[in-house]
C-alpha cells in the first residue's frame, strides 16, 4: 500500500460550493465567459427538452387508447416540419460551436507578459517550481499534512509549463475552468489570470494509478504586492524560531514526501521504515554490512543507490540540490529521534 500523499479530506481549501444549483467561484479571467456559455446551453437545451418531452406527454395523454375502434392518423411525413426541425437546431448548434471555438482559442493563447511557473507531475504528486527558486519545498502544511502549493498573483497572467515524469496526468483547477493533459515526453501549458483572492483545489483528472484521487494541490491567489513574499515563504524551508530541530526535521520529511516510501515507525513500505533505523547494523545487497550513521544517511539521500540494503530495489531518486545542509541536519536529527 502506497501512502496517500495528501488525503482529500485534509486539502483544507474552503468548499467551492455545496449546492448543485450554484456555479463555482469565477476565480479566473476564463471563468465568466465559460459560465455564460454554460448557462446559455442550459437554457437552450432546457427549452428543447421541455418542448420535446412536453409534446411527448401531451400526445401520450391525448392519444391514449380509448377503444378498439380507435382510428389513427395516416400521417407518415411532413417535409416542411422535418426541414424546420433539422435547420433550427443546426443554427443553434453552430452558434454554440462558434462561441466555444472563440473561447477555446483564447484559452490556447497566453499573453506575452505571463509569468512562467513550472509544474512537474509524477505518481502521485505535483512539484511546483518558481523561476530562480528551488523546486521541492513549495508546500503548505495543512492539519499535519503537506500539500503542494501553487501561489499566483491576482490580476497578472500566469502560464504553467507542465511536464510529466511517468504517465499521463491532467491538471485541473475547477475555479479557473482550465484543464490540460500533462503527457510525458512533451511540454503542455495552460494560462489564466486569477481575479479572486483565496485558496482553491487543484486536481489530477487523468487516471494515473493507485493514488490518483490523492494527487491534489492547493492554488493560493494573493495580492500582487504580496506575491514575492508569499513565494519566498512557500519555497523557504527553514527552522522557525523556537522550533526544535526534530520538529523541523519532520517538516522536511513531509515536505520532501519522504513519507511516500518511508514510514516513521520500523515497518517497511517501499523503502525501510525510519523507526529504530539509526545505529542499526544492516546487510547490503553487495554482501557487506554497515551500521547506519550520519554519513550513511547523508549518502543515502544524496546518492541513494550507492549502498542499498538487501531486500530493496534501487529506485529512490536523488535529493542532491534539493535538500540543503541545514535541512539535512534536521532530517538526520528527526530520523535519530524515531525509535
Amino acid at each position: 500500500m502506497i501512502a496517500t500523499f495528501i488525503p482529500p479530506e485534509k486539502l483544507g481549501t474552503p468548499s467551492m460550493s455545496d449546492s448543485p444549483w450554484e456555479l463555482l467561484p469565477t476565480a479566473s479571467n476564463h471563468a465568466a465567459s465559460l459560465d455564460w456559455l454554460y448557462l446559455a446551453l442550459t437554457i437552450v437545451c432546457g427549452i428543447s427538452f421541455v418542448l420535446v418531452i412536453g409534446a411527448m406527454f401531451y400526445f401520450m395523454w391525448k392519444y391514449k387508447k380509448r377503444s378498439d375502434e380507435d382510428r389513427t392518423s395516416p400521417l407518415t411525413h411532413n417535409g416542411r416540419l422535418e426541414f424546420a426541425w433539422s435547420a433550427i437546431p443546426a443554427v443553434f448548434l453552430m452558434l454554440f460551436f462558434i462561441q466555444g471555438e472563440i473561447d477555446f482559442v483564447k484559452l490556447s493563447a497566453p499573453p506575452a507578459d505571463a509569468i512562467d511557473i513550472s509544474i512537474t507531475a509524477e505518481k502521485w504528486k505535483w512539484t511546483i517550481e518558481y523561476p530562480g527558486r528551488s523546486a521541492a519545498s513549495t508546500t503548505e502544511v495543512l492539519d499535519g499534512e503537506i500539500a503542494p502549493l501553487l501561489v499566483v498573483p491576482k490580476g497578472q497572467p500566469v502560464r504553467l509549463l507542465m511536464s510529466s515524469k511517468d504517465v499521463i496526468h491532467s491538471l485541473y483547477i475547477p475555479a479557473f475552468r482550465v484543464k490540460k493533459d500533462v503527457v510525458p515526453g512533451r511540454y503542455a501549458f495552460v494560462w489564466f489570470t486569477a481575479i479572486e483572492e483565496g485558496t482553491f483545489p487543484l486536481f489530477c483528472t487523468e487516471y494515473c494509478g493507485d493514488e490518483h484521487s490523492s494527487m491534489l494541490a492547493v492554488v493560493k491567489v494573493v495580492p500582487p504586492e504580496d506575491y514575492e513574499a508569499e513565494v519566498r515563504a512557500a519555497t523557504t524551508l527553514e527552522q522557525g524560531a523556537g522550533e526544535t530541530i526534530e520538529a523541523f526535521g519532520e517538516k522536511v520529511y513531509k515536505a520532501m514526501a519522504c513519507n511516500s516510501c518511508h514510514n516513521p515507525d520500523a515497518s517497511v513500505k517501499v523503502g525501510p521504515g525510519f523507526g529504530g533505523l539509526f545505529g542499526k547494523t544492516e546487510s547490503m545487497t553487495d554482501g557487506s554490512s554497515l551500521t547506519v550513521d550520519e554519513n550513511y544517511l547523508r549518502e543515502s539521500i544524496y546518492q541513494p543507490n550507492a549502498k542499498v540494503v538487501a531486500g530493496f530495489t534501487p529506485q529512490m531518486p536523488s535529493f542532491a540540490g534539493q535538500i540543503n545542509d541545514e535541512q539535512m541536519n534536521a532530517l538526520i536529527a528527526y530520523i535519530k529521534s524515531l525509535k
Partner: protein
Amino acid sequence: MSDDSKKTDEKAEDSASTDVVATKTEKPVTTDGDGHAEGVAPEKSYLTASRGVMSWLVTVDHKRIGLMYLVATMFFFLVAGLLAIALRTELFTGQQDFMSAATYNKVFTLHGAIMVFLFIIPSVPAGIGNFVLPLMLGAKDVAFPKLNLLSFYVYCIAAVMLILTLVLGSLDTGWTFYTPYSKSTGTAVIMATMGAFVAGFSSILTGVNFVVTTHKMRAPGMTWNRMPLMIWALYATALIQIMATPVLAITLFLLVIERTLSVGIFDPAMGGDPALYQHFFWFYSHPAVYIMILPGFGIISELITVHSRKHIFGYRAIAISSVAIAVISFFVWGHHLFVSGQSELAGIVFSFLTFAVAVPTAIKVFSWVATLYGGSIRYTTPMWYAIVFLWTFTIGGLTGVYLGTLSVNVHLHDTYFVVAHFHYVMVGGTVVAFLGGLYHWWPKMFGRMYNETAGKISALLVFIGFNTTFLTQFFLGHQGMPRRYYAYLPEYEVMHQVSTVGAWILACGLFLVLFTLIHAIKSGERATANPWAAVSLEWRTASPPIEHNFHATPQVTGSPYDFPEIDKSGKH
C-alpha cells in the same frame, strides 16, 4: 414423457440435414394467422425441435444462438452491474470505506471493460438482433449460420480471457487501456487487451453476417424502403463493426507488441507517442459508441409504432440518419482529445464534426415523438420503456452538445459530467431500449406473456433509480468532481449519496426485470403468434417460431408500419 422424447429424437434426426427440411418448407403452403400450415399438424418450435445440451452447443439456428448470446450477455450485465453497486457504495462517503484505492481501481476497470466488451456491444446486435433479424427479413436463417455459431464461441473465448485477468492479478487501467500507464502496470493488461481483441473478431463476424443477410436474404417484395427500421439500424451497426473493429484490433495488438517486445510505439521513454494510442483507440471506440446505441434506436422505432398503432413518422429520415450517423461517427474521434494537447485546429474541426452528428440524432428523437401524434397508444411495458428512453436519451443527447462545445469541454472533460452523459446514452439509451425490446419480443422468443403490472413497476423503478443516480452526476461534474476518484472532497458528499441511493433503486428495478422475464418463461400465459397485432414479418410465424422460421416464404406487399387501425378515409 418417454413418448415425447422419442418423437423429439426422430425429429432431431429428421432435421439433421438442413437441406431436406429446407426443401420441404419451400413448398408453397397457405398459412393462417398463427403461422400454422392448414391441414398439417403444428410443427415443433425451435426450442423443442431437438433436445439435449449438444443440440444447443452445436446449433446453427440463429434463434438459439441469439438466446445463448442473450443469456451470456445478461450474465455479464449482472456481474458488471454488481461491480457498479460496489463502486457506488464505496462512494457513499468521501473517505475510504471498505475498498482500498487499488481495489477500487480494479473494480471500476472491470465494470467498464465487461459492460462495454461483453455486454453492451454484443447485447442488442448479437442477442436480440440475431433472433429477430432473419425473422424480420422473412429469411430462414442468417447468410452464414456456422459463422454465426463461430462468432458466439469467439465471444466466449474473449469472455474467458477477460475473466482470467482476475486470476492473473491486476488490471487497473480503466477500460480504455491508456498508454503509457497500461505499459507500466500489472501483467494482466496483455490478457485483457487480447480479450478485447478477440471480442472484436466476434463483433466483425456478426457484422459480416448481418450485412450479407440484409443484402441477399430479404423476402420477396421487401425493398430497402420496406425494411423495418430495426433492420436499418442493425445494418448500419454491422457496417461500423466491420470497418472500425479492425482498427481496435491493430491498436491493442501494437500495445501487446510494445509490452512484450519493447518496441517503442506509444511509450515516450522508448521514443513512442502516448497520444497516438488515444487517436487509434478512439478511432474505433467512438464509432463503437454508435455500435452500442444504433441498435437501440432500431428497437425504439419498432416499439413506438407497434404500441401506438401508427406509421413511423419520417421513415426515410430515420433510415438515412442511421447511415449518416454511421458515416460521420468515423470522423469525430478527436473530441475525446480536446485537452490532450492535440493541435487547436484539430480540436476546432472535431468540434464542428461533432455538432454535425447531433443533427441526425435530433431528427430521430423528433420523429419518434411525432409518431405518437394521432395514435392510439397502448401502455404496455415495452411502451413504458420506450417513453423512459425518450426522456433519458433526450437528456443524454442534449448534454452531448455541452461536451461538443470546445471551451465548455475543457471544464467538463474527465469529470462526472462525462460519466453522467455517457451513462445517459449507454444505460438510459441502449439498456432501456434493450429492456423494452426484451419485453416486446419475449412472447415471440418463448411463447409466453410476462406479467404486465410487474413489468410496468420495473420500468418505473428503472426510471426513478436511473435518473436519481445520474442526473446528480451532471451537477457533480459542473462542480468540478473528477472521475475515477475513490475518495473526494467533502463538498461533493451529499450529491454522491443521492447518486448511490439511486443506484440501489436502479438495481431493484433491474432485478425485477430479471424476475418477471424468468417468471414469464416458467408460468406466463401462452402467447399468440402476434400478441401486439404487429405487421412486421417476425409476427407472422408461431410463438415461439418453428425451427425454420416460416412454413412458406413470406411475401411483402407494403410497409411494416401499415397497421389496420390507420384511418385512410381522409378524415384525419
